[in-house]
């Protein structure tokens, strides 16, 4: 129990750090980036919006930075992220909520598939270590995980979508996909998802493979494994109940911790395929100097990763009796 409480504490604390970074960064940087942004939109925003922004970024010297900070935190807690500048006057939160399902669907599901697949291959590669096939996957995995996500996406896009025209070039749906959740809509969604899914899968599976392989090799030299073999257990039982169960724990923890990195790569994938998720809008907001949107997106990406980590911690409690006892 204390384990979960501690994790919950870290969750809240990290979220607070993310929010605070959001607040500090634009104020920390020399050259007043907010004025640059306002200058860019001068004439296109109505004066009341400009005023609102100036207040939000403390350009009007209304109150001390401390009181600004608390106003900011208060707004955050109420879910008030202000209005997007590039999509004025849409509230930032609306943009985020529109993009969120796409990212969760694409990045979330693909990452889970990738983890399962990579861990399976890693289990094979670690357990059968010394055989040509099991050892050859290592350099292959290292190469795949060293590829820039977006670059591999570009190549897929060029060959499979542009040259061969097997898949659509961009977006998540056809312009007129039919009624939502109809068969045509689903098939449109699926066709658009193939290339992004493939990109994330191919470039992230190697990392899980290496992690799992190392864990399996570590477990293989544990005394309880020698004891299991001495007992004359069948290989299937040893692999399932002794190797996998134990190697999965550190793999799973690594999964939580690498999630931030994987999500970063996935964001680039969304950009390449103009897939309308959080990453795509983050890119849009950066190029359009839309700071309110950018900061809200960062906050939500951090929130998603943190929640996923909390979920990992929860599952760890189920998998590892030592944690349940608060011993780990």
């Amino acid at each position, binding site marked *: 129990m204390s384990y979960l409480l501690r994790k919950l504490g870290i969750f809240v604390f990290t979220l607070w750090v993310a929010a605070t970074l959001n607040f500090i960064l634009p104020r920390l940087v020399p050259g007043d980036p907010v004025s640059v942004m306002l200058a860019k939109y001068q004439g296109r925003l109505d004066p009341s919006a400009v005023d609102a922004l100036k207040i939000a970024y403390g350009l009007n010297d209304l109150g001390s930075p401390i009181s600004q900070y608390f106003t900011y935190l208060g707004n955050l807690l109420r879910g008030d992220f202000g209005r997007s500048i590039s999509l004025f006057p849409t509230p930032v939160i609306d943009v985020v909520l529109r993009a969120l399902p796409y990212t969760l669907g694409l990045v979330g599901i693909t990452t889970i598939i990738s983890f399962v697949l990579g861990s399976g291959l890693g289990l094979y590669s670690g357990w059968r270590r010394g055989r040509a096939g099991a050892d050859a996957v290592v350099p292959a995995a290292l190469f795949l*995980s060293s590829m820039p996500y977006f670059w591999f996406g570009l190549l897929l896009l060029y060959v499979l979508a542009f040259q061969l025209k097997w898949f659509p070039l961009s977006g998540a749906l056809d312009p007129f996909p039919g009624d939502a959740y109809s068969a045509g809509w689903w098939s449109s969604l699926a066709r658009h998802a193939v290339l992004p899914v493939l990109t994330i899968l191919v470039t992230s599976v190697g990392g899980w493979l290496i992690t799992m392989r190392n864990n399996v090799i570590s477990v293989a030299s544990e005394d309880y494994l020698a004891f299991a073999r001495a007992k004359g257990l069948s290989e299937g039982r040893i692999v399932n109940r002794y190797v996998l169960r134990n190697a999965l724990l550190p793999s799973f923890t690594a999964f939580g911790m690498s999630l931030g990195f994987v999500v970063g790569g996935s964001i680039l994938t969304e950009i390449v395929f103009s897939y309308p998720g959080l990453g795509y809008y983050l890119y849009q907001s950066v190029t359009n100097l839309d700071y309110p949107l950018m900061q809200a997106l960062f906050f939500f990406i951090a929130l998603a990763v943190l929640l996923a980590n909390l979920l990992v911690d929860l599952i760890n409690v189920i998998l590892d009796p030592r944690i349940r006892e608060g*011993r780990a």
Partner: protein
Amino acid sequence: MTAVIPAATVPRRAWKNTSLGRFFRNPRSVAGAGLLLLFVLLALLAPVLTPYNPNSLQFDAFMGFSAQHPLGTTALGQDIFSQFVYGARLTLLVGSAAGLIATFLSVTFGLAAAYFGGRVDEAINTLINVFLVLPGLPLIIVAAAFIRGGGVWPVILVIGLTGWAFGARVLRSQALALRERDFIAAATVAGEGPIRIIFVEMLPNMAGLIAANFFGAALYAVLSEAGLSFIGVGDVSLVTWGTMLYWAQAKGALLQGAWWWVALPGLSIALLGTSFALLNFAVDEISNPKLGGGRLKMPRRTVSAAGPAPVAGDALLAINDLNVGYVTPTGTVRAVRDVTLEVQPGELLGLAGESGCGKSTLAFAATRLLDPPGAVLGGSVRLAEHDLLALSPEELRQVRWKEFSIVFQASMSVLNPVLKIREQVYDAMQAHGVTDKAKLDARARELFDLVGIQTSYLDAYPHQLSGGMKQRVVIAIALALEPKLIVMDEPTTALDVVVQRQILQEINDVRRRLGISIIFITHDLSLLVEMSDRVAIMYAGEVVEQAPAHQLYAHPAHPYTQQLMNSFPPMTGPRTRRSGIPGKPPPLSAEIVGCPFFERCTKRMPGVCDVKPLQTFPVAEHQTAACFLYDPTVSPALKGNAIRESQINAGQSNAGQISAGQISAGQISAGEVSREPARNAKLN
């Protein structure tokens, strides 16, 4: 302190000699280093390789391949090849500089947390956790978005400052483990300051891990820079492989068919990343013995054509001329040498010797549990009707536990931490055909009663049990199928004396009742003499003496055994501290000519013992010793002096003590409790 045989000191090999050698033999590190060298050369030789400035816009746009422009030109009229070779410079700079910053932070935070502990550790650990879960790239994007332009250093700084947490976590746990080690504790006691301890004592021991960490951070930095540049954050007026991709994408290179403008920088990033990843992986493998090894070629076992030699009598276990070695990159450690040993049905054979003399290796090899790099080099092992070393894996699986079981030296860690005890008791029986749930449950309860644990602990997890209880569980599991033989490798050394006593008593009761044979391994000779029917003494991989326990106690034949006996605490009279045997055993990696005990023997006969090939000679009925003192062909004049001395010694050590019969065959009586404190001291 006394009857315990002191540990052999294992010479510490210099890090460089082995690790550097392994670095250059490891195909992955060689490939990684080669690839990296190639890119470094490319970067250094840029002005030689191309005459053009990578930024000059002097050419036509989108030119194809030509002698002048081997890779054509960009949409802006720059030479792509020049951009590529000059791009290597900044890309490498970003990778190494940001990698260094991140590694520096990882080391600083990781070591500080581990060294100072307490509050500092807690604070740093929280910080690490925060940075670990904060999504890095989005953070960098947001941070870098506010720092437009400004050259390459802001990007390097941002990447370095966000990429250290993973390494810090790994280094912290490694340093925490190091802190527990003796030499750090010694340095602390000696009053060395934190800076000195961290930099002089701890850092050098973590060199491999830190190097691996650097390559990991460099990989992360190169990929992050590419991603940032690609979306136009950072300074796109610089020439890196990342900004090349940005411009290629922005100018529609693919749509124009100039696919190589995209393919080349991306592929180079991937290859540079691979070289970092290979180095990271290889250095990790080299510095972490758990991950390395296992890929060595195993020498074929040389089994005599006649198969296992027929054994006289009806021994249950017959080990014949067994040779076992550890095949290491620096040579073969021959840990078991020409061992011939028998165990009769129902017999308790004690096996004693200094730690490091090969007892566990013998036990593991004889039960075919030896893992690489250990390998049986020759000889045979017969158990009942099975030629153990020749069984197929499936045959072996079936024989295991049913015919013989083993209680490991490391009993504290032989239970699977994530499975309930019940499952681990059951599966041993299930693997050998007992599948009925009611029967399994009944047997498990019976076993737990037998070894004295409450049956409720069947549903506990291993970490919920104390050391003594775990030991009992393991012994219960070893008894589950009532095997003919149980090998017990120092089953009680880790326990306190009272628990140890109880467990030994129970083992003895059970084996007498069921007629089970036991090989009992320990470095505690006094314990062994009390418990065993027969004792075998090992030294430097060889069995140097075998005798019935009372005989060995009354008349130890081998000078090594005598010296061990001499260090027995006297049972009466003042308890004096005695030191172990001076000197240390010969390294097992060397070929030993003559007697391995020569260097330390007080009765050695120069010209004989260090020259002649050693054999085992009969001493008395049922007693043999591998010592030239019992070689009838050696002139009595040579050994006269030595023998007289030995008799005096033996006489002294037994003077006025209990008779041999009293201590034979594991009678552990209340009368001997007076010796308890002595054993207590050596068990600490």
